[in-house]
């Protein structure tokens, strides 16, 4: 079994959003800062007011690495993990979809690629953004 997310956990709105082809994260009801994964309190202003909102599905690559040692069954190596900062400021780990290894660089503009990996599960991956 490949590792799958907890669809029913605190991040359920995020995973449901991906099914609907949206990137949804928590937005603080007091200061407006975005955050993900889910947390009761805003780490900037400590407010407990928040809602899940769709954000622009765009961001930039901050760095990446390539796994050669396998840690999970059914995730064959090598595979690449990206660190992406969404334009709303939220950071994510993810995988590239259709980006050639040689094309990766810091600051590469990327956009969401919704990858249906199981009947009920969509992962948020990233492809190069066209200018």
């Amino acid at each position, binding site marked *: 079994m490949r590792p799958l997310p907890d669809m029913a956990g605190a991040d359920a709105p995020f995973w449901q959003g991906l099914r609907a082809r949206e990137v949804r994260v928590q937005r603080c009801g007091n200061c407006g800062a975005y955050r993900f994964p889910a947390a009761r309190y805003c780490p900037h202003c400590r407010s407990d007011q928040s809602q899940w909102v769709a954000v622009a599905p765009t961001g930039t690559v*901050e760095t990446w*690495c390539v796994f050669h040692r396998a840690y999970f069954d059914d995730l064959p190596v090598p595979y690449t*993990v990206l660190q992406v900062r969404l334009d709303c400021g939220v950071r994510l*780990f993810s995988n590239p979809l259709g980006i050639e290894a040689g094309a990766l660089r810091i600051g590469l503009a990327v956009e969401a690629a919704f990858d249906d990996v199981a009947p009920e599960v969509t992962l948020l991956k990233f492809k190069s953004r066209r200018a």
Partner: protein
Amino acid sequence: MPKLLSAAVVGVGHTRYGKLPEYDAYALGLWALTEALADAGLAFADIDGLIVNRIPDYQRFCEIAGLDPSYVSITPGQGRFSGICIATAAALIRDGLARTIALVYGNNGRSGGDRYGGAGDTYGSGGGGQWFPYGMTSPGAFHALMARRHMELYGTTPDHFGAVAQTIRAHAALNPAAVMREPFTLADYRASRFICEPLHLLDYCLINDGGVALILTAGERARDLPRPPVYLRGYGMATALAGSSFPPDDFWRAPMGKAADKSFAAAGIKHADVSALMIYDNFTPTVLFSLEGFGYCAPGESGPFAAAGHLALGARYPANTSGGHLSESYMQGWALNVEAVRQVRGACGERQVKDCAFVNYLAAAPVCTSIIYGREPS
């Protein structure tokens, strides 16, 4: 006004390192503590403060060791806590909460089957397996991400990481206690397999069993003990814990700078006065980040600095003369502090740094620590 920072390390001890399946973390800790007390010329009854690290339970440890200290505490098994414990012990001594403190570390991770990636990994995954669906896991990958970023920003190369690994292995070759003592070439390094690219197997620390203990006491008392006291001339800490599920943009440069400033101000010395470095080497890139953050190199210059040989014995800043985590033993900072003490004592034999007046222990992590050891109290 009492003199600050007058605490001294008066005893160090450790177990054999390697695979020790017949010992649990408690037994490894007690073995090391027995060695450290013998080194200090002190008895169990002299201990009135105890901090255990990576040992699962302080009460059980005291029961096993027959200890009733006035002060006791326990800290989690993360490498950043060795520096925290040492600085805390110095502060406790200064404030009179305890006079003679034992710091005891036991790690049976090798025989206990501890895993640092995949299910059960909490460090490199951002906690709770949040990123497992994307295959993100392990402290090694976390550092591989930082290494790649450093390469892209500054032109750091894999050979720079290799130079760190090779230099530290050459030091381990002079240390009979080290687990890995066979020197290797840069070609061997390049040929070693990738674990998480850009990092090779030889960029990763060991995983082995062992225990370490340090005995600290007040400066006045230290002078009456058999070993030359090694004083904590200065220490400083700073953190970057907010947002720390992800690698920091600045390679922890800001907190390292703060920690360095505090420690050097307290010690009353400059970087140029330092004789040797003990750098927390969980992965080779951490050594480079530390050189920059703690002020031994300008940002981006650490790779060429290491490749030029400045970290080798006989060069300007001999680093990890014991072999560090990469080659001596994965004792999460503790064994590097033992080596710092032994270097200041002048007790390192073949691998002794000449005229070793000051040693700086550096640890780069979400908690950064700088400790300066010296022969005289400040």
